[in-house]
């Protein structure tokens, strides 16, 4: 190197080296084995595995329910974060701690309790059943479970940004004649939008990979309520390793593309905000 510029922060080379090694070991290597195992199959065998109608139906269930759950979480997560940041009320800290519970709770526990609640003879399901609304063992039930596990992601990403947004900014908007919803759509929302998108992406990604809580409430009916992770497990149990990794590979690529797209969107939104 002809000219070596010295930064103020030392250790860039070392820390970058560790980062790369660590990521390779912990993330890239396991993911690479998915590719390697899938390569056992011929192209046509791979293609027929991943386009099997039952598999395609499970993509639809997983991505559809995950998207719906992430969307619901985005709306209500913002509301929860707003309430926690803007208002002082007794029990605020308790509510704040409650938000993290889905992080810590074993997902199977969540699945079992949600199934019981929403079953046609459960506390909530019992009231909905007479109207012909079924939640447990349907697509809706899956979404409910995914909403439960995804909530903290949105709340925790939006909260600090809302914290940063001074009340004075809203007061300024009001003094300039803006109505409440105008203040929200023109001032508050554009400011939290990037964080909201991050929260959405995290909740979405988490939902796609979720297994434990969903298998109980979904009923696992092929073509209807079967999610991709379950299908993969099923294939593994049948010692169809190549088939399992094929489906996993499709999931992997699809998730990566989605997250990349969301990241690009977010990058564009951040640039508009300009730090």
């Amino acid at each position, binding site marked *: 190197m002809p000219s070596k510029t010295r930064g103020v922060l030392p250790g860039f080379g070392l820390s970058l080296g560790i980062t790369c090694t660590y990521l390779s070991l912990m993330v890239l290597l396991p993911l690479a084995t998915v590719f390697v195992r899938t390569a056992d199959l011929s192209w046509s065998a791979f293609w027929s595995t991943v386009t099997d109608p039952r598999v395609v139906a499970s993509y639809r269930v997983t991505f559809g329910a995950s998207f719906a759950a992430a969307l619901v979480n985005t709306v209500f997560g913002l509301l929860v974060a707003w309430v926690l940041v803007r208002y002082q009320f007794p029990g605020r800290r308790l509510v704040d701690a409650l938000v993290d519970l889905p992080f810590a709770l074993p997902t199977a526990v969540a699945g079992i309790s949600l199934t019981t609640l929403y079953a046609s003879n459960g506390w909530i399901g019992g009231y909905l059943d007479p109207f012909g609304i079924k939640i447990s063992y349907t697509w809706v039930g899956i979404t409910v479970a995914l909403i439960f596990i995804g909530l903290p992601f949105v709340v925790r990403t939006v909260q600090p940004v809302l914290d940063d947004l001074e009340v004075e900014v809203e007061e*300024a908007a009001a003094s300039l004649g803006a109505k409440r919803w105008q203040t929200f759509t023109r001032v508050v929302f554009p400011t939290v939008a990037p964080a909201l998108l991050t929260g959405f992406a995290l909740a979405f990604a988490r939902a796609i990979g979720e297994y434990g809580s969903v298998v109980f409430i979904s009923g696992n009916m092929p073509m209807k309520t079967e999610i991709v992770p379950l299908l993969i497990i099923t294939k593994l149990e049948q010692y169809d390793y190549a088939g399992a990794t094929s489906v996993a590979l499709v999931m992997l690529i699809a998730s990566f593309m989605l997250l990349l797209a969301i990241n690009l969107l977010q990058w564009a939104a951040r640039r508009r905000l300009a730090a």
Partner: protein
Amino acid sequence: MSIEVRNLRKVFGDFVALDDVSLDVPGGELVALLGPSGSGKTTLLRIIAGLEPADRGSIHFHGEDATDQPVRERQVGFVFQHYALFRHMSVFENVAFGLRVRPRRVRPSAAEIRESVMSLLKLVQLDMLADRRPSELSGGQRQRVALARALAVKPKVLLLDEPFGALDAKVRKELRRWLRRLHEEVHVTSVFVTHDQEEALEVSDRVVIMNEGKVEQSGTPEEVYEQPATPFVYGFLGDVNLFHGRINEGRVKIGEGELEAPEWADARDQAGIAYVRTYDVELRRVRSGAFSLEAVVRQVRAFGAVVRLELDLVDGGGTIEAHIPRGRFDGLALGRGQTVYVSPTNVRVFAQ
């Protein structure tokens, strides 16, 4: 547009922020609310703006009751200490905000908005930076954007909460002169809050001095400085020396000396304090007159047109400060440790 504030009271928990405050701001004036922190000045401003409800009392704008009007209908321009700009918007969009959120019926056309925003930006000398983001501006520039934004809605009154408080000393000085000039141009009734006496006295037409939720005095800068109504105002505006003594039948006895205080003719042996501005003292090398206190020079700061002396009173009355013109100081030929006789030329006595 004038502002009339009547009997305002505001309590936070058990802290009385405003205690029966009344105030008149004549239309077109620039008024400073001056006071130490916790004196209630910001609370008063926020209640005038409608950002805070009053517990009791009323606000009228030009005779029209505005007490229960929400802030967005009051048509006030509010400028915050920390600017409160919309950071995701350009300077132009910040200023245009108040016009863009109007209902369609009364919203100006895009061309009209463009024109009025650009003319405002020209007024605050930021027309070159219309496309920048607030984060790309200096503090002084940001506050000018905030001011232009507030003026864009043609407010009835302009309210500024410590507008220069977050800026460094030099920019602050520039900006307050600029605010004064701007006020002469646009002539909107303005109230600004400050804890900086110099700022209040230099910029405003009228100063309202507040302390512990009450108005202590209200008047022109000259009035409040030259004729302080209360001991608090005396102490808060400018440097002052205190002489403790006894008041009896129109005379005040302080140490060896005695002063005339005709306004206290009815007082009978009462504790009192005489307030004397640091520049209202005469220093002599020999004793003269009825009131002449002996003192020893402790410290001399002889730079600039005014020489500042610290004097120890010989009879144990503490230390006083004297500011005398340089020429006079040279004539006295004083030095540290020398004896001098102090005679106040202008005294105001308050009972304790």
